[in-house]
């Protein structure tokens, strides 16, 4: 089965990102293809490398990064949502005159078309939100 996963909430505040991660990991371990994980709304905040959670807590961002490394996962952050929330890569920094970036490795910023495309291409689209 070919899956698209959508994440609508940021890390820690809501369980949505946790559930999306656990689901995605289980799907990959079962041998399914996860075509893309699309981060929308506050979900874009999952893609910042600036977090430092307490040592006895899970690291929501790094967990996604490690999963992406292991399974060559496509983690896409919506550009419009990212601009509102302040998630910036080098291209965005240049375009919007920002003095730095905060995007985590393995995440990439792209347009909403990537979500539609994933939903068209995949057998199932699964949404995690608040």
């Amino acid at each position, binding site marked *: 089965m070919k899956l698209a996963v*959508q994440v*609508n909430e940021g890390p820690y505040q809501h369980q949505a990102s946790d559930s999306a991660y656990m689901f995605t990991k289980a799907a990959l371990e079962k041998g399914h293809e996860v075509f893309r994980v699309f981060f*929308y*709304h506050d979900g874009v905040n999952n893609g910042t490398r600036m977090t430092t959670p307490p040592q006895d807590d899970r690291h929501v961002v790094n967990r996604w990064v490690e999963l992406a490394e292991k399974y060559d996962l496509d983690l896409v952050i919506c550009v*419009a*949502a990212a601009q*509102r929330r302040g998630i910036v890569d080098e291209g965005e920094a240049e375009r919007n005159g920002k003095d730095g970036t905060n995007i985590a490795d393995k995440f990439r910023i792209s*347009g*909403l*078309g990537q*979500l*539609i*495309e994933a*939903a*068209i*291409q995949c057998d199932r*689209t699964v*949404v995690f*939100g608040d």
Partner: protein
Amino acid sequence: MSEVKKFMYLNRRAPYGTIYAWESLEVVLIGAAFDQQVSLMFVDDGVYQLVKGSKPADIEMKNFTPTYRTLGDYGVRHMFVDKASLEARGLTQDDLIEVEWEDWETEEEVDNIVEVIDADKVVELLDESDVVFSF
């Protein structure tokens, strides 16, 4: 995959209090570039998204109700509204905006694609869809 998929946008939230309604609409607008069959469903507080006369200037937000009126130009063929959700909120179709639709090739025109339906029809339409987006 060559088959055209049926996309349903399920809108259950009020506008302005949260951004979900507006950012959901942004997906619909972008989606116009893709080959799919698009419908929007408004149930629960989602019906408030179509209420006309919104004036958010004093809360310093952008009025995005006019954008719904243009959806006919963005490949949206149907906008369904749950009747019971309207009634529980003291609303009727007269309170909602109208959205025109025209097929540029066949010149077929529809004055208003906003249609109030009952719960059974909501279930049937959700069921027929290939993808249901919830924001």
